């Protein structure tokens, strides 16, 4: 038993080293497949991040009537937090709103002058509400408009922002859905290409496989070395693809961060090292061995 195992491994290694031209082609295609699948994986993460960044920028504000006291608003805030869709809530007092305004428009003398002329703080206290899903802003706004504190509320500015929120919602869900379809198509395509390359490589050994069977080798004894050979090709492809991914992430990460804030692929690479390795190992070695197995099956029937 042990001697057979040893021979299968030796023979697999020998096949690998003697058919370098063929294995080179296989490895090349495998590397490409692994890279395609890894980048799709990263792209998915990238779009999620992008969507999150955009969604972060959207909120609705609830403005309170002039006469509402701060305690009242804090109480309302505590109530709103209980709504499950609410992710984040921020209280902006009258004074804070004024300061924000001055801060923003201090270089605009006309606005500053008119504010001075007014002689009082024209701003209303407000609560800024962020939802975890853009689709839920409407619901939150409805809850507020029909709640017990609707008398203290001056207005909810959801309706002003409604078109933007709706469009954003449509866009992100489109991105998610089309991304999934795109990924599935590309993954299938690249797996088929890799599978076919390995199948063609093994086709060259058709007669050899049949001769092995005719001199009395069992199926596993014939198959074994090919699976080992596939495994070695897979391992080399995974190593190469991993190095390529690492270098791309390392050199591109900081540059990308300048373009898209919060999106450093090198950090992402470090965070998801485990899943990336698993994905690449699964694609490279799994695909190579599985394809070899299927490709040989046909020629063993003798």
């Amino acid at each position, binding site marked *: 038993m042990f001697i057979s195992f040893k021979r299968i491994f030796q023979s697999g290694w020998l096949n690998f080293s003697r*058919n370098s031209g063929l294995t080179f082609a296989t490895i090349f295609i495998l590397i490409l497949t692994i890279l395609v699948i890894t980048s799709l994986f990263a792209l998915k993460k990238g779009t999620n991040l992008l969507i999150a960044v955009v969604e972060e920028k959207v909120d609705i504000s609830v403005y309170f009537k002039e006469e509402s006291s701060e305690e009242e608003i804090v109480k309302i805030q505590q109530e709103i937090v209980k709504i499950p869709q609410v992710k984040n809530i921020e209280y902006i007092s009258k004074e804070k709103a004024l300061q924000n305004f001055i801060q923003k428009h201090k270089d605009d003398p006309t606005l500053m002058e008119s504010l001075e002329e007014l002689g009082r703080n024209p701003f209303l206290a407000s609560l800024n509400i962020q939802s975890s899903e853009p689709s839920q802003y409407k619901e939150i706004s409805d809850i507020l408009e029909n709640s017990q504190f609707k008398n203290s509320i001056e207005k909810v500015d959801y309706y002003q922002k409604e078109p933007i929120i709706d469009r954003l919602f449509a866009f992100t869900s489109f991105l998610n859905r089309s991304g999934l379809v795109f990924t599935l198509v590309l993954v299938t395509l690249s797996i088929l290409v890799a599978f076919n390359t390995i199948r063609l490589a093994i086709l060259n050994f058709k007669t050899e496989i049949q*001769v092995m069977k*005719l001199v009395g080798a069992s199926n596993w004894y014939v198959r074994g070395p090919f699976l080992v050979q596939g495994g070695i090709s897979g391992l080399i492809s995974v190593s190469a693809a991993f190095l390529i991914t690492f270098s791309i992430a390392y050199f591109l990460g900081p540059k990308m961060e300048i373009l898209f804030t919060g999106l450093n692929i090198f950090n992402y690479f470090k965070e998801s090292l485990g899943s990336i390795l698993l994905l690449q190992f699964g694609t490279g070695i799994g695909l190579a061995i599985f394809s070899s197995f299927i490709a040989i099956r046909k020629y063993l029937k003798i």
Partner: protein
Amino acid sequence: MIVFQNVTKIYRSHPETGAIVALDNVSFKIKEKEFVVILGRSGAGKTTLLKLLIGEEKPTRGRIFFDGKEVSKTSPKDFPILRREIGVIFQDYKLLPSKTVYENIAYAMEVIGASPEEIEKDIPKVLELVGLAERAFNFPEELSGGEKQRATIARALIHRPRVILADEPTGNLDPYHTQDIIHLLEKIHEFGTTVVLSTHDKEIINQLERRTITLEKGKVIRDEEKGSFIL
């Protein structure tokens, strides 16, 4: 030891050319340690007969027995075991192109689980016997036809099979090498191995004077103890 009972083999190939009857109701018996020549023109069914015996093809009708076991009922799992009892010398050599002569021969031993010591001990002997000692580490493509044929003989012999099937082993060789191969087969027979040799070579038949089964168009037309070449 080998029994063919009313064996018919029909190849259903192209719908237009129709079915080809390779063997038609063939029956014979071969005893242990016999030397039998299967004689026939090319296309008479000689190769089919040998393929049926090692299970490379299945008979359309009839039964084939090897050592009392029916070959066509052998499960795919047990074919390797059957094939290890039989050494085949193929007309087209069927050497593994990516392995050297030594590795080709070693492969036939490895599949039966021989130890490395046995392999190291036996291969030089068999290479000596077939006269290929100096070619041990060459690849098949570097050998001449006669050398390739001797390499297949060495591979067929190495695991000491009880039967040697030689399918036109001299078909691609010049008369000088043909004599070599025939002498080799006679030597193997003297060691106590059953030999089944298929040929269409008149010289061989007349020289050997062995039992000869003559095939024509898939039928056995003659089965004589001391064969002569009549076709």
